[in-house]
């Protein structure tokens, strides 16, 4: 246990959701603005760029979650639940606003 009773796994994978959501949004913007390079590679890697995007997101979530859960000599990251909940809500809101804004302006 760490922080205020949140387990290392709960904090680690929670932070992984936050980071992966933001990185997924950045990847969306990069692939849409780099059709010839990034998007072309994502289309080649699997039958559809969206499948490649999903594979990257899920793999990143698992890897980051495991790493963040084991950091600090296995104790994980210390964080209050209110901060983690706020970060999760902020990441979801930021992703929605950025993705929406990108396609509205495109």
């Amino acid at each position, binding site marked *: 246990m760490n922080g205020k*009773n949140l387990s290392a796994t709960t904090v680690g*994978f929670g932070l992984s959701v936050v980071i992966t959501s933001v990185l997924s949004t950045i990847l969306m913007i990069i692939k849409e603005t780099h059709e010839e390079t990034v998007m072309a590679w994502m289309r080649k890697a699997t039958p559809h760029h969206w499948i490649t995007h*999903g594979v990257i997101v899920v793999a990143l979530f698992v890897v980051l979650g495991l790493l963040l859960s084991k950091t600090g000599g296995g104790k994980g990251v210390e964080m209050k639940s209110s901060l983690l*909940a706020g970060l999760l809500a902020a990441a979801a809101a930021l992703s929605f606003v950025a993705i*929406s804004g990108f396609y509205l302006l495109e």
Partner: protein
Amino acid sequence: MSHLILMLHPMLGMLAILAAGWLFVETRHVDAQNGQRIISLSNVTAILVWISYIVAGYWYVVFYAPEKAVILKGPWPFAHNYFMETKEHVFFVLLLLATYLPIAARDDLTGKSPARSLTGWVACLVALLGIMMEGYGAFISMGVKLGALPH
């Protein structure tokens, strides 16, 4: 058959919203009776969102192209250009949160523990994003309908 596959997507999504809403309510007061129910509900929510994702992803990759063409030629091209594009990318956030739900629910939720409040927040976010997905899906459906009508 492809349309039956498509209809599974909002149906599973709606069930996931209900499960997440139920889970949120259960986290308001955790005791010995509902601890296992919370874990089961978190599993059910995650499984429903994942099946919804796989079903919709299969349909999107295999069957969506002709409907996309109909939308883009119709009076509501934004049903694809904005609603579908946004939905397919925001969905990843929902998928991550739903996958995280069973992890958070397995922490110590008894009493006024921080994990109890966190699990409730995540369930709430899953339900809200799920509702948003349903709404965006309705716009996409209407975009196809309007595109298919004589105009």
